[in-house]
Each structure stands twice: as C-alpha cells, then as structure tokens.
C-alpha cells in the first residue's frame, strides 16, 4: 500500500469507513434519544435516572460518545488541513495546525472522560 500523509490514520479508506460507521451509530442514538424524550412527554428525574441506570443504555451512550470523538476528530482534522495552510497562514501554518489539532484532541479526550464520569462516577 502506498503510504499516505493526507489523512489522520494514514489511510483515507479507513477514515471514510470510520466516518460512516460512527455516523450510523450517532444517527441511531439521536433518533432513540429524541424519540424517547418525545414519547415520554414531561420528563421526571426518576424515569431519566432509570433510563441511564440500564447497562445497555450506558453501553449505547458510551458507543455514541466514542463514535462522536472519532467522527469529530476526522471532521475537525479535515477542516484543519483544508484551511490552516501556508497559503493562508504563512510559514507558521504547520505550527498553528499542530496547536489546533492538539486542542481538538484534548477537547475530545475530555469529552470522553467526562462521559465516563457521568455514567459511572456519580
């Protein structure tokens, strides 16, 4: 295989498939949660707390959160490489892009750990 430097995983096909697979998971989670809230009507704490105490819901939520991180990383990475370039930002573009990517990774990692704490730490 030809070594690629044009995508994060060094493989555009892998990025493509990860972006699609995570999209399906996120779509399913979105439809489920919005549907649940609509059917439930006036939400009370006991029902809400009960929903998130089920193991399957905790797994579904973590799957959605991990998917969010992978999906958002591929999206934000693409945006960074599209716009933070030497043509627009001069000689320091590579440095700016590195800082941007580190901020994206730290943000997404924080989201992930925050989610773990919410589901199992309280």
């Amino acid at each position: 295989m030809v070594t690629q430097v044009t995508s994060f995983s060094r493989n555009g096909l892998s990025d493509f498939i990860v972006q699609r697979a995570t999209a399906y998971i996120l779509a399913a989670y979105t439809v489920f949660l919005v549907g649940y809230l609509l059917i439930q009507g006036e939400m009370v704490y006991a029902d809400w707390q009960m929903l998130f105490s089920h193991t399957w819901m905790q797994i579904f939520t973590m799957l959605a959160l991990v998917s969010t991180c992978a999906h958002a990383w591929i999206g934000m990475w693409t945006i960074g490489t599209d716009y933070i370039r030497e043509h627009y930002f001069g000689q320091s573009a590579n440095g700016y892009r590195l800082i941007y990517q580190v901020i994206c990774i730290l943000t997404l990692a924080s989201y992930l750990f925050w989610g773990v704490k919410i589901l199992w730490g309280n």
Partner: protein
Amino acid sequence: MKNDHRPINVNPSDLMAFAWPLAALASITHRIAGVILFVGIAFGLYALDLSLSSAAGFDVLKGLMNSPFGMFVTWGLLSALAYHFVAGIKHLLLDMEMADTIEGSKFAARVTFLVSAVLIFLAGIWVIQG
C-alpha cells in the same frame, strides 16, 4: 502544455466570485453545523451531568433550559444537530450512488434544506413548549 493559471488556492476574497450552487451551500452548511456540534457537545455533557447528578440537579437543569438563553442554546444546538443529521443522511445516500448527478444533487440539496427547515421549526416549538 502546462497551464500556469490553474487556481490552486481559494482566498476568502474570492468566495463571492463563485456561483455557489445549492449542493455547495448544503455542503459548507454541513461543515459549519459540525463545528457548532463539536463545541455543543460540551453543553450536552454539562446537561447530562447535571440531570443525572441528583433530583435537585435535574430541576436546576429544567430551570436553565426554560430560561430565554437556555431555550436559545437548546434550540440552536438542536438546529445544528437536525441539519447535520439530514445532510449526513444525504451523504450516506450519495455513498449508495443516489442523487449523484447534477440534477439529482440539486434535488437532494433542496430536500436537505427543506426537511431540516421543518425539523428546526419543530425543534423551536418543542423547546418553547418545554
């Protein structure tokens, strides 16, 4: 023969020179909605954290989401989610080689804007009714 006048980079000042077909508008809006959601996840996690912390926390969140600012943020994020969702479905259909002709892409972009506009309107009603 080498063409030295091929555009390699697009400057922000050039953006208005483009015709901006509907499919291009649908695409850049998808990207913008994605960035809004990247930031918006923080609000979602904050809300989830507060709602599951205790019955008191749950009520605090309800109060926040019923304030004008809370309603605006909730509606804004639901709108970004609705658009990103619909435009994402369009992407998945494109993968299946649907709507990938010029006419098809125009139609798909129109449907994307129309369906998401309806969803954003409904999200507004949902948020206002609490």
